[in-house]
């Protein structure tokens, strides 16, 4: 399991750095870029359970908050909550196939977006137009690239998934 902890930490840091690097802006579609960190958290939660998912979501989210200009906790809470929910329902509701994974990420991204919007509304500033300008495009973008990331991560964690009986 130590391998999973170390690789998860590396993946989260690398995804944040890649996401924040100026060259990543080139792949913006409809003014949004995909949230790689979020996809990784959903993956970890889906495969290693609720506790691991929410912990990774919280730590990754706090790092994301530190990296971003957002108030501390604003990006951490949605990621942690999704980590918890996906870990609880993930494998029971969404079986491991490209279509269901895409659907899972689409729904999870939308829920994350709505939670973020609500937190922004209460603790920061928000506009309902962000549903159309951020939440929906980002959810589709995440869903579009998630199968590839899931396949790559499945290969990376093949041994651990096998021992957990999730492969």
């Amino acid at each position: 399991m130590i391998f999973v902890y170390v690789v998860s930490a590396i993946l989260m840091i690398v995804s944040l750095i890649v996401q924040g690097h100026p060259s990543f802006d080139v792949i913006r579609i409809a003014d949004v870029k995909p949230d790689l960190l979020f996809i990784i958290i959903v993956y970890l939660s889906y495969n290693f359970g609720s506790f691991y998912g929410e912990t990774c979501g919280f730590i990754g989210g706090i790092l994301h908050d530190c990296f971003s200009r957002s108030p501390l906790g604003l990006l951490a809470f949605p990621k942690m909550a999704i980590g918890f929910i996906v870990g609880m329902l993930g494998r029971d509701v969404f079986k491991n196939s490209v279509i269901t994974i895409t659907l899972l990420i689409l729904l999870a991204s939308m829920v994350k977006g709505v939670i973020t919007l609500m937190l922004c509304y209460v603790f920061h500033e928000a506009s309902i137009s962000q549903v159309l300008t951020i939440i929906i495009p980002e959810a589709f973008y995440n869903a579009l690239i998630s199968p590839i990331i899931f396949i790559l991560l499945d290969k990376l964690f093949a041994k651990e998934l096998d021992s957990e009986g999730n492969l």
Partner: protein
Amino acid sequence: MDFLIRSRTIVAFSVFTLFCIISLSVQNSGFTFSIEGIGSAFLMPFQKSYNGIQGGLRKIWAGFTELSEVRAELDKTREKLQQYESVSEELSEIRQENNRLRALLGMKEMVGYDSIAASVISKDPDNWFRTIVINKGKSDGLKINMPVIAFKDGQKAVVGKLVEVRGSIARIQPLVSPSIKLGVQLQESRYPGLLYGKTGSSDICVIDYVSKTAAAKFGDVVCTSGQGGIFPEGLLVGTVMKTELPDSSAYQRLFIKPIINYAILEEVFIITKEPDKEFLELIEGEE
């Protein structure tokens, strides 16, 4: 103890939720600032190394691929240099004439500010916020609210202002961020307005409170008005894309495309001009 271990998922969820709610409730306090500082200090070395490695690899690759292009460019540059030498003489004459005319009109000399060059090392990884991180910070003399510009076709254009300054890095809030408020004016007609970003993710700005009598049209240039105490007057901001005349308002609204393309922004200059103290006190007093 057994209960805690058995219910660790729920316990952890509750603890994390509590932490997030408390930290959001006390945001901008010393508590959150120090945690963000620790997180930022932890991530920055990785970020800077990644940036350095990527920059180095790009330079090595460019050494192989761009050699013939560089040669052709060198020849062109030499030709241009000759042209510019003659232009330079002409320019110094024009400048002298301009100074004389200014003196005649009793105008003040345009104030020139010192600036510090910096490179963009990171951007906000999220779609909800739009900030840019640069490789200069407190140790280079940067302070919060200093204006940031970049050069586009030889002209100074506004990038944003500093909103966070740490040891060796600083964070810029760009014009396209909804949180920024900037006093601007139409370059030709001189009508003033208040500019802010449309949404966190779009590259469009909005100018409100522009008089309906201002005949703004597509392509009109917008520049800083100097009001607000942060940005000097006359810096380029953007061009008008669309105008909107709401019936319910006494003002018209303009949609602006910034001069700066934030997707390809690499180098910026921070004007080492501290904001007017009286103005800042006034704003803080209002807040």
